[in-house]
């Protein structure tokens, strides 16, 4: 690529159009309006914002900072410190695979490879069709069921390659059905 090719050119070549999609920020204001006191509430507010959008859009984070009288850097600092906050859109389903010690010694690696293979993505990535995001996480606190994964809010334990495949097939099927509705 020569130096005079701009990012815009690349995007145009790739058929990527600049998305000027306006994000509706009303929910952010509603979340902050509902607080009796804002002191110490930054993390719960950001969690609620993430529940609304599936991630924390920059515009929303800026509103949070302005309304709560915090520096944007403070809000950004918190967003990047905690692993559960995400600054980019995520898949419809969040798949977390435990890479803790108890899961590791019980074959967690096999489960992780299976998931990566089936989804075609690695840690921290989202499938192109926005079906799912995949994360390897530290201990999920269900070591008695090792190896464990969490799909959205549900834990699935004592997994092996076959069981993982079945669970993922079911999830895909349910997702397709739900989208067809």
């Amino acid at each position, binding site marked *: 690529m020569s130096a005079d090719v701009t990012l815009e050119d690349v995007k145009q070549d790739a058929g990527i159009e600049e998305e000027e999609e306006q994000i509706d920020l009303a929910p952010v204001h509603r979340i902050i309006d509902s607080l009796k006191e804002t*002191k*110490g*509430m*930054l*993390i*719960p507010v*950001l*969690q609620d914002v993430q529940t609304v959008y599936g991630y924390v859009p920059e515009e929303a984070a800026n509103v949070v900072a302005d309304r709560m009288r915090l520096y944007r850097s*403070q809000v950004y*600092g*918190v967003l990047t*410190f*905690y*692993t*559960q*906050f995400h600054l980019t859109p995520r898949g419809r389903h969040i798949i977390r695979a435990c*890479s*803790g*010690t*108890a899961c*590791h*010694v*019980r*074959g967690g*690696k*096999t489960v992780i490879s299976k998931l990566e293979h089936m989804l075609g993505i690695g840690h921290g990535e989202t499938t192109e069709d926005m079906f799912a995001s995949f994360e390897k*996480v*530290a*201990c*999920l*606190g*269900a*070591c*008695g*069921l*090792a190896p464990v994964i*969490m799909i959205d*809010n549900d834990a699935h334990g004592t997994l092996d390659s076959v069981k993982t495949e079945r669970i993922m097939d079911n999830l895909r099927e349910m997702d397709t059905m739900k989208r067809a509705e």
Partner: protein
Amino acid sequence: MSELKILTRNVSRPNPAHIDSYLVNEGYVALPRALNEMTPEEVIDEVKIARLRGRGGAGFPAGMKWDFASRDRRKPKYIICNADEGEPGTFKDRVLIENDPHAILEGMALAGYAAGAEKGFIYIRGEYPQGARILERAIAEATSRSFLGDNILNSGFNFSVTVHRGAGAYVCGEETALIESLEGKRGQSRIRPPFPVNVGYSNLPTVVNNVETLASVPPIILRGGAWYASIGTPECPGTKLYSVSGHVARPGVYELPMGVTLRELIFDNAGGMREGRTFKAAFPGGASSACLDESQLDVKLDFNSLAVAGSMLGSGAVIVLDDTADMVKATHVLIKFFEHESCGKCTPCREGLFWVRRILDQILEGSASEQDLDLLLEICEGIRSTSFCGLGEASVSCVESTIKKFRGEYLAYLRNSGSGEAETEAAS
């Protein structure tokens, strides 16, 4: 030694988390008794007589903590229930949260009465969304029956509880980092002293207790400190929830008197090792504890005995490994965890763990030499002795202890360019 169900007395009951199930089994009997018949000092004394020690890992006497907070004249004061159960291998608090949330709430109200606090927080890790919902429902139930809220049971004592969900950071299990997080900041530890009992949440006196510690309080008030002190060992009384995971036949949470041996826990309770396999090592206090080998199977699993054995009880997370385990790989997994979870505040932990992981990478790749083992130990010593908080200090226990006890496995990697011991995964 067999199970003794004090903390888990309600776990196998139908619908255990519901307030009516709790009430049937002497639930919310201790709280009115304390409010009507005991002064706050008497509640503290009872917990001191029980010699209840903090179950989060440090083992600090709970009664003393409450006493320090109660003597501080500044108000308001706070009670924080540390439910940020993040130590790899620990899943005991989850059992209490999901099955007996009212025991935790009653313990918090008693702590609040004793220390002179009217506000409590439960800081629960973000990975336990269901637990957070159960606790919130339990708080609503308890408030509607006047076990929480203003003027509890017409005693004039007010105590309310709020649930805060963590957002994914292991270091927030450390009490000062937890307080920072509760205040809406990055979870980075504070310098101690001053301790939270004097300078905690909003710089005010704050008692931080583990879930299991607080759930132990109602039975102590009900049956008396002397009764509790008669269970377990003299220095570490009471029962302990042990989370047993890894290569045992029946992983799970077992409640046993403190001082049970590792052998009794594994072979009498957790079903022994997997079929056809033999014991090799165990991390008795989660990822941050030094490992024990076969010669230490008869070590008692309490704060003092494990300290003497060169390890620690921590949160009682016993990760058991059998003869298929590759100690170098297991250590690598543990160090990757700590490297990721280092909060970045202090250099020894942030940079040191990066280098420890790099050298372990090289050992596994077969591109390290025996001198690197010495270098590894030197870096570990630096991290242990100069890190800002307990996370850094304890993070290298796994490296130090596995090199000490399983040096041969490291040497095998160094000699054979990476074709060391049996594959861990293949055997599972």
